[in-house]
């Protein structure tokens, strides 16, 4: 088969961009931790870059994308152990409208999807910062990838039951953000608060690192969203622009709110707002147009600003605000698509959004998809987390927490700026 070289080039590139997001995320979070825990944060993210691809070619991809388009719950084993992965034709991947139109090698599609499978569990790291045993993480990630990520990816991205129902998710509002956000909530409830939280100040140890991470995330997110068009066409173009505008609007909204409320526009606020905008536009990116991304970005910037203070009210220590930004931001975007979806942008939109006169049908489907994803991810993560807690234990000792996880878990120090040699 003749592949479309332009599409292939763009998806190859997008895959590289999305892979780059995980180190970006590591820095984004790493800058916010205390300096004694920065390497542990980086390692939690790096580890996902290591273990997930190994699992993916063996079993993860086939569980997510085997028997694509079956309106079902889980993939089958057709690609087990990378079988046929390098030779299968896109047309054989699945029979629905979406896969029928694929013009790139399946192995590129698989690599692109792999990058999503890598970053999704990595997102959870921000919530459990500073106190999770690395061995527990090392066990949690493969289990979660197989038991939670692959199924949800199948439901939504592989023409599984949620896609069949009519819910839309362009690039992972459900699969990535709500999924990880709900898992994060479950895990911090099991894990408990950091020693000292919330009374002891734990300011970010290096905001320049966080801003660099934000830059990388922003950059990579173009691959995430516009790459999800799986072609270099008008839909990719729209997704690109929407991503840009929503991120910008999220930043501006957050800055305005905090300037008014706290008296200062902050770097961390700018970064947080941009990420919130990026999260919210993710499900919508290739389905909306005009000024919709502006409204979505502005809205989520305000909503997430307030969402991150929930943790103080309810007392769970979502350390770096994974719940506040990814769960809430992902939910906001998923529902917003029910308002703004535009069939002139993308023919896959069969029910337009409420504000475009398409009625509430899509909004309802979106709500169902959100509820299903959040519910499943929360419960499944609780079970996995509980099992790990009862076996090897989730949490480091108090002494190890005090010393810092870099030394206690990795026998390393992040910084040795003073030199004695």
């Amino acid at each position, binding site marked *: 088969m003749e592949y479309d070289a332009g599409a292939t080039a763009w998806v190859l590139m997008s895959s590289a961009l999305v892979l780059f997001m995980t180190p970006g995320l590591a820095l984004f979070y790493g800058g916010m931790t205390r300096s004694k825990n920065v390497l542990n944060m980086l390692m939690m993210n790096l580890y996902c870059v290591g273990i997930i691809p190994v699992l993916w070619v063996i079993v993860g991809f086939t569980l997510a994308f085997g028997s694509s388009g079956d309106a079902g719950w889980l993939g089958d084993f057709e690609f087990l152990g990378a079988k046929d992965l390098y030779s299968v034709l896109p047309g054989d991947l699945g029979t629905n409208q979406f896969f029928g139109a694929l013009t790139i090698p399946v192995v590129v599609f698989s690599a692109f999807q792999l990058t999503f499978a890598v970053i999704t569990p990595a997102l959870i790291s921000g919530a459990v910062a500073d106190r999770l045993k690395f061995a527990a993480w090392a066990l949690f990630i493969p289990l979660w990838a197989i038991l939670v990520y692959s199924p949800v990816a199948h439901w939504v991205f592989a023409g599984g039951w949620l896609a069949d129902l009519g819910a839309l998710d362009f690039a992972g509002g459900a699969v990535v953000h709500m999924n990880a956000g709900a898992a994060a909530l479950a895990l911090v409830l099991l894990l408990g608060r950091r020693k*000292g939280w919330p009374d*002891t100040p734990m300011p970010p140890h290096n905001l320049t690192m966080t801003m660099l991470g934000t830059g990388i995330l922003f950059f990579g997110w173009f691959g995430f969203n516009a790459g999800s068009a799986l072609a270099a066409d008008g839909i990719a173009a729209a997704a690109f622009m929407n991503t840009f505008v929503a991120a910008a609007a999220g930043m501006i909204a957050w800055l305005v709110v905090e300037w008014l409320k706290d008296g200062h526009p902050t770097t961390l606020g700018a970064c947080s707002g941009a990420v919130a905008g990026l999260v919210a536009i993710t499900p919508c990116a290739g389905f909306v147009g005009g000024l919709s991304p502006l409204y979505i970005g502005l809205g989520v910037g305000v909503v997430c600003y307030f969402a991150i203070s929930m943790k103080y009210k309810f007392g769970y220590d979502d350390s770096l605000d994974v719940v506040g930004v990814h769960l809430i931001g992902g939910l906001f975007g998923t529902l917003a698509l029910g308002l703004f979806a535009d069939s002139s942008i993308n023919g896959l939109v069969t029910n337009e959004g409420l504000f475009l006169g398409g009625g509430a049908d899509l909004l309802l489907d979106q709500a169902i998809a959100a509820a299903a994803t959040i519910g499943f991810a929360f419960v499944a993560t609780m079970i996995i987390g509980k099992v790990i807690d009862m076996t090897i234990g989730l949490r480091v000792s108090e002494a190890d927490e*005090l*010393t810092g996880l870099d*030394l206690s878990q990795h*026998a*390393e*120090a992040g910084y040795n700026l003073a030199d004695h040699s």
Partner: protein
Amino acid sequence: MKQITAVIKPFKLDDVKTAMKGAGVQGMTVTEVKGFGRQGGHTEVYRGAEYQVDLVPKVRLDAVVDDADVAAVVEALIAAANTGDIGDGKVWVSDVFDITRIRTGEKGADAV
């Protein structure tokens, strides 16, 4: 006047500062230091090479106080810094002839 110098565990800084304020101290100077002592250190590993690191992060406090306040301040400091675990640190006192507040030129007890 006396100078009270203490070396404490970093995470105790806030408590100790509060306790010293409570005992009447109005100013002090804080230095990030590393301590060597009975607490020992830890091992770091870089590409298979093990390094024995016997310096651990500590915080040093220096406060010049009036002779009359020394006992109370030291007591408050010790109470706040104590965890009972090895490495809690030391506090010692030495003599100061003369202290001047740079801004005003005030001396002695008026300067601290």
